[in-house]
């Protein structure tokens, strides 16, 4: 057993792997955010005492009293600071790993977490190519969002608490991706759920927001059920739960497509569906937008919600062995993508549009990993982290600005309703440009990041449909068509968002418009960095065909298929299984045509949609929210998100609540406790009958006494 504290030095022993490459203080990467949490948490507790006194005295938070206190200045440095250090350390390790030809994961164990019987779960972390990519995204994008938050949240009374939660989130997210076994991943898995709960309900005085957090947690727990069951089942099969032990033997232990592996992967799928907000558990994510906007960017777009994709890629061998589960993954993915895109068409709340867009993009990632394109899934996860974080942060800047305007013009309008915006391009040029870049990226227009990642997923779906032994070829063809259609919808709703927000007439009113402003530096610099990444981020994984073609500038784009090669050690087992059972993938889409042709078609089509939409919507006069008519027909259904929430309420939540009440009022109180009290009362009743004999008359007693003596005498005598 290794005592605590030695996290920084990797102690010898346990099951550390002997790799050619020594990571630099990997434990510290996890510990730094935890340290940040500890410091910010302590500050938050101190600050909360003070603001509680203020509340009790009937005052509201006094920024100039508390805002300059150490509790409100220190988090500015500690919060992003630990992230910066963690990011730098990750970069150091990343560079180190780049230099080393690493084929096996590097495992560092610190202490045995749960040891009993033949179960041994070490508190161990694993560094490999996949976790490295995730760590780069988490700490890198995380750092940018922390910086953005300084500007966005500084005037909030809960500022230190905000950073405490945010640091804690990064800690758990790192545990999730760095853990060397499923249970360790599960710590992170539930931990990020907890942070999401706390951050969605950050402004907990608002009942709606607190409820949104609660909903997220409970829905996520449904997924966690699947995760736990998958772990149990894997333990039954392997008697161990760490990746190294499972993945090494998976191919020999499991029958391809057998019932056990299918069950395991379906359980994992349930977990992934919950965490990544896929149908039918997507309902929590749109509500999660109740949290502060940077939180939406970090947790509900860039990192946490992609954990499901990470889980599938991490378990790629298992999923490759279960063709049915993979088809279900892809199916859920593409249906979610389409469904969420349709909902996004008609939302008026800027964050709701982005939320459904996120759900939709996550659907794409699921489609990717479902068709066995694990690299493409991670690739899209990464580019999505860039442009969706950017979109959310941009939306945050917009909301921030609109709030100011509405506040100064004394309007109690909804600051997130796009109908109340318009024409912001003149006031917020940097945000405007950055968000357009992200929009082009998410719409899949060449040469922005989203084009390469999304196109690869769609292409691989088509290729899967035409694979030699594709198990469900027809199904995959349908997926492919739906995915193409969804890509066009994406282009439409994003253009709509941009036009309604930044173009046309400003609708905040003259007094309000004076107060519209560009975001401060701490906010727009992260935007600019993310915008750069949204433009160029896709170039790290251009497939060879594309790279050689006009879309790759005939080989001018650098780094063809880099990510693919990088992740090869992690996914090679899965690819081996796929090759053995599926045979060669098709080289043409179901309708014919190669990758380059379809890439051209999709980018031209998406561009056309963007232009036409911009043109059409740009001319339309948008009424402000309070004057707008209720939507009718199909748009009403879309506006109400297909009434899924209502459906769940009617058929799940209410029945459970009613049953609970019946169980309590009838079964528990009446029947069970009734029976208990009945026994008690019966005893009392019998006693009461006996007590009737007791008259209090001595004569009666004497009579019975005599009678008794006579009876006894008679019995003895005869």
């Amino acid at each position, binding site marked *: *057993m290794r005592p605590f504290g030695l996290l920084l030095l990797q102690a010898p022993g346990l099951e550390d792997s002997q790799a050619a490459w020594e990571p630099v203080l990997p434990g510290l990467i996890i510990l730094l955010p935890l340290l940040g949490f500890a410091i910010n948490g302590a500050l938050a507790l101190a600050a909360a005492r003070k603001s509680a006194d203020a509340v009790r005295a*009937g005052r509201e938070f006094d920024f100039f009293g508390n805002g300059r206190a150490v509790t409100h200045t220190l988090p500015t440095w500690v919060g992003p600071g630990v992230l910066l250090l963690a990011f730098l350390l990750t970069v150091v390790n990343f560079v180190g790993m780049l230099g080393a030809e690493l084929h096996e994961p590097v495992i560092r164990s610190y202490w045995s977490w749960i040891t*009993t019987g033949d179960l041994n779960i070490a508190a161990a972390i694993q560094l490999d190519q996949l976790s490295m990519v995730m760590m780069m995204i988490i700490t890198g994008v995380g750092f940018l969002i922390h910086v953005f938050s300084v500007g966005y949240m500084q005037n909030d009374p809960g500022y230190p608490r905000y950073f405490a939660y945010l640091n804690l989130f990064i800690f758990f997210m790192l545990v999730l991706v760095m853990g060397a076994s499923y249970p360790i991943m599960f710590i992170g898995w539930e*931990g990020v759920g907890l942070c999401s709960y706390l951050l969605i309900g950050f402004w*907990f005085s608002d009942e709606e927001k607190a409820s949104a957090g609660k909903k997220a947690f409970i829905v996520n727990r449904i997924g966690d059920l699947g995760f736990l069951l998958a772990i*149990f089942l894997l333990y039954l099969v392997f008697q161990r739960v760490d990746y190294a032990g499972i993945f090494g033997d998976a191919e020999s232990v499991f029958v391809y497509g057998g019932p056990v592996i299918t069950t395991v992967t379906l359980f994992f799928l349930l977990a992934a569906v919950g965490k990544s907000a896929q149908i039918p558990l997507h309902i929590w994510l749109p509500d999660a937008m109740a949290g502060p906007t940077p939180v939406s960017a970090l947790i509900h777009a860039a990192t946490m919600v992609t954990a499901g994709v990470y889980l599938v890629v991490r378990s790629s061998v298992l999923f490759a062995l279960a063709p049915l589960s993979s088809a279900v993954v892809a199916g859920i993915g593409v249906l979610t993508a389409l469904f969420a895109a349709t909902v996004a068409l008609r939302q008026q709340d800027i964050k709701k549009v982005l939320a459904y867009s996120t759900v939709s993009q996550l659907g794409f990632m699921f489609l990717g990993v479902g068709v066995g394109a694990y690299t493409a899934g991670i690739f899209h996860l990464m580019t999505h982290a860039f442009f969706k974080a950017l979109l959310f942060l941009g939306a945050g800047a917009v909301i921030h600005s609109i709030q100011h305007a509405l506040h100064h013009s004394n309007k109690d309008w909804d600051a997130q309703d796009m109908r109340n915006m318009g024409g912001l391009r003149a006031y917020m040029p940097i945000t405007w440009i950055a968000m357009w870049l992200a929009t082009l990226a998410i719409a899949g227009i060449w040469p922005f990041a989203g084009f390469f990642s999304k196109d690869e997923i769609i292409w691989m779906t088509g290729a899967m449909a035409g694979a030699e032994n594709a198990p469900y070829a027809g199904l995959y063809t349908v997926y492919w068509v739906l995915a193409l259609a969804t890509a066009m919808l994406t282009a439409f709703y994003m253009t709509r968002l941009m036009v309604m927000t930044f173009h046309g007439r400003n609708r905040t009113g003259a007094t309000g418009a004076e107060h519209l402003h560009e975001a401060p530096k701490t906010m727009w610099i992260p935007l600019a960095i993310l915008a750069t990444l949204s433009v160029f981020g896709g170039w790290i994984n251009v497939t060879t065909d594309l790279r050689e073609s006009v879309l790759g500038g005939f080989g001018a784009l650098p780094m063809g298929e880099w990510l693919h090669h990088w992740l090869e050690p992690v996914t090679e087992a899965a690819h081996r299984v796929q090759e053995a059972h599926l045979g060669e993938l098709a080289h043409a889409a179901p309708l014919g045509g190669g990758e380059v042709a379809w890439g051209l078609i999709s980018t031209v089509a998406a561009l056309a949609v963007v232009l036409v939409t911009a043109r059409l919507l740009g001319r339309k006069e948008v009424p402000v929210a309070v004057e707008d008519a209720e939507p009718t027909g199909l748009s009403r259904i879309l506006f109400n998100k297909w009434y899924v929430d209502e459906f769940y309420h009617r058929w799940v939540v209410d029945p459970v609540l009613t*049953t609970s009440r019946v169980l309590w009022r009838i*079964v528990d109180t009446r029947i069970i406790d009734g029976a208990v009290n009945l026994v008690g009362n019966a005893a009392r009743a019998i006693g009461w009958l006996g007590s009737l004999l007791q008259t209090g008359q001595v004569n009666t007693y004497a009579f019975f006494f005599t009678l008794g003596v006579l009876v006894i005498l008679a019995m003895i005598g005869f």
Partner: protein
Amino acid sequence: MLSALAYESWILHALIWLPLLGTFHVLWAAEDRAKWLALRWSLVVFVLSVGLWWAYDPALGGGYQLTSSLPWIAVWGVNYALGLDGISLFMVLLSTFTTPLAILGSFNYIKKRQKAFYALMLLLEVGVVGVFSAVDLFLFYVFFELTLVPMYFIIGIWGGERRVYAAIKFFLYTAFGSLLMLVGILYIYARGKALLGVTSFAFVDLLQIPLTPQEQMWLFGAFALAFAIKVPIFPFHTWLPDAHVEAPTPGSVVLAAVLLKMGTYGFVRFLLPFFPLAARHPNVVTLMLTLGVIGIIYAAWVAAVQPDAKKLVAYTSVAHMGFVVIGIFALNVNGLQGGLLVMISHGISTGALFLLIGMLYERRHTRLIKEFGGIGRVAPWLATAFVITALVSIGLPGTSGFVGEFLTLLGVFENHPGVGILATSGVIFAAYYMLPMVQSVFFNALEKPENREVRDLSRREVVILAPMIALMIVIGVHPTPLLRRMEPSVQMVLERVYAAAPPSAALIESVQEETVETVERVE
């Protein structure tokens, strides 16, 4: 250092007799000093008990250690015999840990007849430590019943409005169960005398008695009923919400943290090793697993709609103890270890929840959830402590609640996947009952003016809660030292369960003939 003090030889006696001394000291002292005296006595006991952690050596195997025995009623073979194994070790520690905190938690709550109250709290500690450290069945039973008396008065005198009803229900219900167990005890004793000629109540001697499968079944039933009521297992649970709602805070704390554990402890200590044939009988296993799973889900659902926060937590206890029961009757190492960890974790977290609810009650004089709202804004520390504890209670990974539930469910899943799946759904329902309560009490708008006046934690309250929260997290992060200490004893119990064979008819006959001969010769 411990051995230099001959710690092993006197510690268990000290843990039983010191609180008893304390009881008299408190009774003797002045009314206003009673609470401090009681606190001091219980702290001394706790500090002394900490040494057990090192004194108990799992490397020596799973048997009893620190044993000592004095003849008590020699004619009947009753001994005052104490000992500790990996299972009871943590129950004793849990008891000595909880008692001072419960006493400290009653400083503001108990206003009337303080001397009597604190004396009873110490007497209660005598009882529970005795229950967990007795290795003589007669002695065990004496302590088992002894715990009823102080708790009866604690609920009946310092309780809420329906305290007398609750106290009598608690007393009669649990006493009814244990009387059946007494019959069972006497039967075993008689069989031991008849078959082996041993007049002894010592566990080790009683384990030697060859009981037929039928006998084991009946005895299992008698013992199981006693413990099932104590645990409590669905459908014997209805005394618990009543008792908890009416009991004063410290009473609830000890009740939840320690007294319920006597039931599950009895399962592990007696049902499995004494009646292995019954315990591993498929019908019995199915029955217990079914009741456990029903308890988990049913109690969670009922808890979710409780208007009274304390009653809600009381029902969650039923759900948690359901986990323990299925863990035990998974009859494998993981399940049993998990069950024991759930016991420990539940003791700490539910104890803390009751303390927290007591703190809210002291401030607002109500426990109705709908009366609160927005408390997080005026009492942030209280809210933080409550949220952490609630998360432990619903089994968040990285806390003690998770490790126990994880191992339990893993163990159950190993042997009974279907039951495992159903029981695992309990993790969803845990969130379903706990989070709405947390939201309604601590979140939402601060509307009621009374709630605006709620004070945050005082220094005394921080001192109570801090060690509990720390322990919940430490156990969650590093449970291995606990598991390591429990494992040999758990293995022993399981070996006994699986190794036991029904005594052959020949053996019984030969033993009986011998007995008959002896009897005849005597006559």
